[in-house]
């Protein structure tokens, strides 16, 4: 195993470019995209019912951090949508809403979903109020609820209604974590890639025929790729923390700790791909495709909470990035303890072990 590691480390020193470039990209992308204001967008909204302006709905719209609802007249909203100045507009009524779609974009479903939730909340509150017979209590409760809303604790209150569906969006963390998890895939993949080169060049055959134990050979490769990927994450987080000055709200070591199973799972995944592809070209074609789609579905580019499609969410459950983001957000944003993160941690570990096993099975098939 030392022999394998020895060669890999020498190779790494000779050609560190993937590593350096991917580390730089992570930092660059985050700095360019991440420190700007949250990626919000504006939606013109109007209502023919004037009483809506001081309702719960109005407040909820104002409080939305992700979408800026702007009150306009019906005329101006329709014009904007017609002329393409806005992708969509919204007409609100007391118990219903209409979306005017100019261009069909993902924003439509985001807005639709947001509005649905707001109306649902309203409905629930009204039902609750109706359920209470006593008029006096009803008024009190209503006042209370409005009072809560006015003091912006509304959000926390609704969390109980919506449960898991509510999330806190932090653009900076989203970028830091997303890009870190995304770019490290390349670093790992192009280290694991050595295996394919070795196979193509016949070095692998030489190793197979040597007295070195098979497990030493695999462990050597695993350990090396793991260390390269993990090193990159450490460097990135350290730079963000100490040089860029980002407060992660949690101890850095905890963030780094939960990255161990993530890096392991990615190493295993790329080794599995190495075992399944036949040529270097196939590998080069698959890796970017896979990493980009995993990042999109797994929530590295935008919060997974914005993904609504059931099939996509099911796919997301199979993707390591999903759990990586869950772990990092869990620690940095929700301040979860490691015990609370037991499930994503163990899923990643299981993925890693499983994929390594399958990969070795496929690689061994050819040999005696």
């Amino acid at each position, binding site marked *: 195993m030392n022999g394998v590691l020895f*060669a890999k480390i020498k190779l790494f020193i*000779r050609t560190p470019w993937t590593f350096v470039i991917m580390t730089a990209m992570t930092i660059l992308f985050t700095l360019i995209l991440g420190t700007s204001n949250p990626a919000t967008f504006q939606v013109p909204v109007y209502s023919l019912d004037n009483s809506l302006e001081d309702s719960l709905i109005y407040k909820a719209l104002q409080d939305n951090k992700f979408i800026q609802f702007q009150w306009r007249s019906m005329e101006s909203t329709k014009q904007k949508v017609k002329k393409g100045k806005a992708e969509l507009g919204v007409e609100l009524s007391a118990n219903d809403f209409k979306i005017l779609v100019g261009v069909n974009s993902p924003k439509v479903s985001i807005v639709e979903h947001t509005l649905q939730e707001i109306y649902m909340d309203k409905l629930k509150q009204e039902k609750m109020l109706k359920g209470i017979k006593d008029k006096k209590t009803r008024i009190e409760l209503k006042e209370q609820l409005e009072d809560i809303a006015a003091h912006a604790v509304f959000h926390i209150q609704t969390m109980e209604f919506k449960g898991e569906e509510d999330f806190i969006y932090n653009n900076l963390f989203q970028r830091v974590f997303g890009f870190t998890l995304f770019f490290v895939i390349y670093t790992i993949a192009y280290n694991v890639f050595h295996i394919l080169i070795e196979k193509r060049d016949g070095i692998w055959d030489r190793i197979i025929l040597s007295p070195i134990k098979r497990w030493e050979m695999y462990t050597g490769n695993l350990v090396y790729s793991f260390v390269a990927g993990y090193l990159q994450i450490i460097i990135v987080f350290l730079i963000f923390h100490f040089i860029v000055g980002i407060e992660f709200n949690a101890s850095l070591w905890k963030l780094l700790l939960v990255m161990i199973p993530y890096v392991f799972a990615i190493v295993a995944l790329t080794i599995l791909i190495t075992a399944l592809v036949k040529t270097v070209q196939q590998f080069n074609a698959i890796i970017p495709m896979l990493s980009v789609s995993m990042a999109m579905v797994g929530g590295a580019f935008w919060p997974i909470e914005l993904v609504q499609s059931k099939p996509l969410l099911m796919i997301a459950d199979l993707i390591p990035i999903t759990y990586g983001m869950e772990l990092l957000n869990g620690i940095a944003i929700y301040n979860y303890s490691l015990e609370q993160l037991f499930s994503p941690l163990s899923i990643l570990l299981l993925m890693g072990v499983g994929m390594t096993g399958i990969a070795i099975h496929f690689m061994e098939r050819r040999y005696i």
Partner: protein
Amino acid sequence: MLELARLTKRYKQLYAVKGLNMFIEKGEIVGLLGPNGAGKSTAISMLSSLIEPTEGDVRFHGKSILKSPGELRKVTGIVPQEIALYPELSAEENLQFFGRIYQLKGKQLKQRIEEVLELIGLQEKRKEVVKKFSGGMKRRLNIGVALLHQPSLLIMDEPTVGIDPQSRSYILETVKRLNEEKGMTVLYTSHYMEEVEFLCDRIYIMDKGNLIAAGTKEEIKQILTSETTVLIKVEQLNEKFVQRLQAEPSIHQVSTGENEVTVIVPKEIPVFKLILNIAEHTDIELLSIEMKATTLEDVFLHLTGRALRD
């Protein structure tokens, strides 16, 4: 020492190697000859325990290697057909890596690296990265790697392909020396007849997966005792001449080069008269007619109807 019994490898419909029987005794240099695609490399992969045969067996000291290849692997050095080295590492680093996976360490490793570098004549180039090497230097290092653990059986798959004459004779001399001085057993694969004639005691000839001849050099040449090879040199070759030669029933094989033709004819035929006659009728200016000593190349031509290298 090593014995192949009905060794077969099939890829879908294609028999890369079909029912190969072969043996190698201790201290021999055995040649394995064949044109491109004959199945030489496939045979070597099987007998070195790298890939599993579809059928048949390989026995090392009487024991099948299919279940326990360990013994064989320990004492075997393989020189693969393609250069199997890390191009980004230096000659010395490559040797260090392969030495380590062969469980050499410390002083012993260092000493072996020195010996091997000397043997392959690359001491001066030890610090240079392999990708900057010439073809011949890469070939030599490719061989050197296989010698690190002092194997007693050396299997070489076309170790001299595409290199300059100096490097080639250097390699041939080295192999011969290893055999004579260290008693190393060698299986030497090639499609160059001269190399095999120079090195080998016994020869196997393969074509299209089949073994088509086997024996000592002399035995193989015996195949042609009833026939003679004749080399005809002409001023300016023309199509008509070749066609007439081919049409002549007593002439067995006709192969053409630049203004020369090689034919194989039975010994009892009055060959000079025949050729003079044909030349006259086809307006050919003859330069010389020469009876050649039989070479392995001729045997190959005789057996397959094709030249060994095309």
